[in-house]
């Protein structure tokens, strides 16, 4: 199950063409091809996907949770940044 010798991979699945890949979880594998094969077996058993991305977890840069206040709080009061004041034309999907 967990093997200290195998790196951890993050798995991203695209559910259908036109949508973006979404993070679905992580798993261990010896390399990327094995990670894709494992992801296929673990994360697409119920028809969840049409495309898989994997990336080694240690290659992901991440923001520091301790800096959450200065990074994200200022945006909360700036409601004018939301595109809610526009009318979305009919027929536009996935906005």
């Amino acid at each position, binding site marked *: 199950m967990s093997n200290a010798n195998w790196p951890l991979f993050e798995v991203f699945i695209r559910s259908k063409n036109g949508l973006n890949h979404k993070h679905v979880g992580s798993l*261990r594998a010896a390399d990327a*091809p*094995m990670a894709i*094969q*494992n992801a296929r077996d*673990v994360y697409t*058993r119920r028809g969840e996907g049409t495309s898989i991305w994997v990336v080694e977890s240690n290659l992901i840069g991440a923001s520091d949770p301790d800096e959450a206040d200065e990074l994200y709080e200022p945006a909360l009061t700036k409601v004018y940044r939301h595109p809610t004041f526009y009318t979305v034309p009919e027929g536009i999907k996935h906005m």
Partner: protein
Amino acid sequence: MENKLVTYTLRIADDSMILGQRLGEWCGHGPILEEDIAMTNIALDYIGQATNFYEYAATLAGNGKTADDFAFLRIENEYTNVLLVEQPNGHYGDTIARQFFYDIFRKLYFEALLHSKDEQLAAIAEKSLKESKYHVKHSSEWVIRLGDGTDLSHERMQTSINNLWKYTDELFYMDDVDKELIEKGIAVDLDTLRKPWLDHVEMVLNRATLEKPSATWNFNGGRKGVHTEHFGYLLAEMQYMQRAYPGMEW
């Protein structure tokens, strides 16, 4: 004619059923979680294929027997699967070697069966081929990883390949049943699959730095219902529920 087609269909069905049963034994015992799930996925692919073939055989037989009767209520020498698929799981390399030999055969077989004049067999082949392509990918990847892995994994993978080699010739076994149906354009002439099978096996073994075994002594008998000593135990487990609670439905 009708009977030969039933016999032929049951042979393919039995291969699928018994291999699916064997793979199912890995459920909860896989070396890693992902492989545990992969093995049960593949087991279900094979059992799904068995269901399709058994149902077709039941329709053809037209004697009131159902697919379940064929799957669960025959005795040992009425099953006509090849001996390779009933071989025990052993360690993971043993299972991978067995799958590797059979998966490649099965993929080539379905590619040929697509052209069968029997529409139902051709349709099942078309549906199953995609599954088989993935099975080949899965088992080949593992042969390469274990063969071209550490000294220990290499040695064990080579031993597994050597041990199961004697059961591979039977994959191409043919008799009157096949010959009559080949003439009618229904069955696959398995002689035509020998070379593509060997080419594919050799290609993967080369990449895995493994040797092709040189032994030429081969087992057969499965297609006539003569099985290895492992088979009775497998059936005892597989049939237990139907034998203990006749007519039980899931």
